[in-house]
């Protein structure tokens, strides 16, 4: 693998300015060696821990991405009432209507002074995984904490990076709270077929809300066991890789064995509860992403690279251009909130059926040097049977992706309402879904990177 080092271009500050500033941390003793993150990501140099205030949303909130983006983030009311409730609190008519806002405002409980003794960390790990699943998690893993996985300070639960910096050195924190629990939810498969549509938004946002409820419950349970649970300290993707939840794809998302790329990878819990950490897994993502490039081909903003991995901030990985991805939003907010194209088109994102399991197992069990052939065969089969991009017509709760963007029609059979803004029920024939914008529209203002 020929990795190249990304260099900022002078004068292009916003596109190239790294999300990380400052000096890389120096770790010794047990943390001298970088953590094992599997085949898709390697730590090859010194890593500067990201400050929560340098991540996209806080930067946008401060106006660093320009007034249009800031206004879009801070002042916009979502066009869709369900997105107002389940999306970010900034986009609701009243932020108190958003469940996450209610959760964040509620006081947190104390740690139970009577600590449950843990003699067997393996048994406790099995228990915590079972508990997380019972509380609503679709994906659970446990990682050993390493300072390179941590952020410089705490991200608050609403993602705004408020709440001040953690005063303790990061290696000290990892000694005090040596385990990270990754527990999260998956998006509904059928609904994200209507990506770039309010239906896809509903799947994404609702599972985010459910993940928040789940993490809050799990945090409460760990406190009831008599141990500490810290949220917002860890880069969720790094922990998910180390825990064996999945591998990092070309689309910059964690690809899991059961759900593909359709999982939230938001916050994690850092704890001193004695647990047994997992190991990175090999799903063949490294081999598949080298060949496939489906996400890069279909990304409406050309934010996904066609090229090889790059070394960025000491980490070798596929790096997406977060800014061009982010910048499309003000142009599309009438039609959708979150794009999700790279999630929906990923060949790993398929219904959880026997043939999907068979394809992954066949790739996993093939020796690495021979995997290229298997990947090409699987990709050809996927393109032929599944298509490059599915344009399904999806109908859910009165939403209908068969209505062309910009047009208004009520397609519900039997609806007798006098719709003021678009007249009586319209007729939409066929099973084709329309998803705004089309690739050719965005090619005009977002240049594709060189292959």
């Amino acid at each position, binding site marked *: 693998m020929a990795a190249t080092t990304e260099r900022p271009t002078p004068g292009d500050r916003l596109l190239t300015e790294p999300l990380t500033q400052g000096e890389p941390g120096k770790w010794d003793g047990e943390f001298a060696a970088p953590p094992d993150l599997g085949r898709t990501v390697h730590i090859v140099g010194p890593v500067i821990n990201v400050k929560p205030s340098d991540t996209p949303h806080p930067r946008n909130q401060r106006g660093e991405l320009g007034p249009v983006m800031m206004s879009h983030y801070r002042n916009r009311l979502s066009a869709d*009432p*369900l997105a107002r*409730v389940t999306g970010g609190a900034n986009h*609701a*008519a*009243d932020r*108190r*209507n*958003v*469940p996450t806002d*209610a*959760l964040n*405002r*509620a*006081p*947190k*409980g*104390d740690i*139970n002074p*009577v600590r*449950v003794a843990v003699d067997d960390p393996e*048994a*406790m790990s*099995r*228990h915590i995984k*079972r*508990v997380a*699943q019972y*509380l*609503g998690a*679709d994906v659970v893993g446990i990682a050993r904490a390493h300072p390179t996985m941590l952020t410089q300070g705490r991200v608050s639960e609403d993602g705004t990076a408020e709440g001040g910096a953690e005063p303790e050195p990061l290696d000290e924190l990892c000694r005090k709270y040596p385990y990270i629990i990754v527990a999260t939810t998956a998006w*509904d*498969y*059928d609904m994200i077929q209507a990506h770039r549509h309010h239906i896809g938004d509903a799947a994404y946002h*609702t599972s985010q*809300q*459910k993940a928040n*409820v789940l993490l*809050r*419950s799990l945090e*409460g349970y760990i*406190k*009831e066991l008599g141990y500490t649970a810290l949220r917002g300290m860890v880069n969720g993707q790094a922990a998910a890789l180390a825990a064996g939840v999945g591998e990092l794809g070309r689309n910059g998302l964690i690809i899991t064995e*059961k759900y593909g790329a359709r999982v939230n990878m938001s916050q994690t819990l850092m704890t001193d509860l004695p647990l047994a950490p997992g190991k990175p897994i090999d799903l063949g993502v490294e081999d598949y992403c080298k060949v496939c490039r489906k996400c890069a081909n279909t990304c409406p903003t050309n934010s996904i690279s066609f090229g090889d991995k790059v070394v960025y901030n000491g980490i070798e990985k596929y790096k997406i251009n977060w800014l061009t991805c982010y910048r499309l939003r003000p142009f599309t907010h009438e039609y959708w909130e979150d794009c999700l194209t790279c999630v929906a088109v990923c060949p790993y994102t398929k*219904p*959880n059926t026997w043939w999907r399991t068979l394809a992954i*197992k066949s790739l996993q*069990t093939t020796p690495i040097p021979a995997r290229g052939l298997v990947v090409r065969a699987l990709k050809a089969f996927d393109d032929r049977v599944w298509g490059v991009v599915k344009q399904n017509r*999806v*109908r*859910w*709760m*009165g939403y209908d992706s068969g209505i062309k963007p910009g047009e208004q029609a009520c397609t*519900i059979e039997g*609806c*007798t*309402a006098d*719709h*003021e*803004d678009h007249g009586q029920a319209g007729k939409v024939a066929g099973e084709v879904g329309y998803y705004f914008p089309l690739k050719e529209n965005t090619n005009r203002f977002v240049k594709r990177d060189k292959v």
Partner: protein
Amino acid sequence: MALRLGPLRISWPGSEPKDPYWDAFINRPVSDPRNLTQEALRSPGGAVNPTRTDLHSPEITSDHLKQLATFLGAELVGVVRLKDTEPQDVADSESYPFAVVCAVPSDYDPRTALGIGGQVAVRNGRFLTFTLAAYIREMGYRATNQLPGDEQRLAAAAGLGTLDAREDSLPRSAGPACMWQTRSSTPTCRWRPTGKRSSVRRDERRQT
């Protein structure tokens, strides 16, 4: 011990190791109630959006609310007009003419299982009713989840089942269920469950 055949792993019945902490997870009462997530979801939520969303006809709006409730975790959903219930709830029916009643499945009886695990159905019910009421308010109609507990009576009126002899629980085929209600002013109509699932299929079920 499990039998391993390559990537296959077949557990012998009863061979999975016992979970020594499970009973406490389900039954041990919490030391601090703030560690229960449902306490955080007690909030009355925000105000009604002054701009109303264009709605479909009442029958279809009822069906959409049912689809949303099912998507959020309800097993059964019914809509009842409060004026039709016995005894009539006149005072409330003026502000909130309709009640959306949801049954949330529960593996344990939350009245006796006081641990965080035993209270999961309560948490799910609060999340469901909070979100449903908030959605109705964001559409520009009045809705509340802050009401006294007469869910069983309303559930029977909505056709979700019939009350048992003690009139305090609605029999369900498998295990106890938690009943929740959201009252609303959204133009809906009485809606009886038909057993039809949401139009969007769920391709997998969680395994616990």
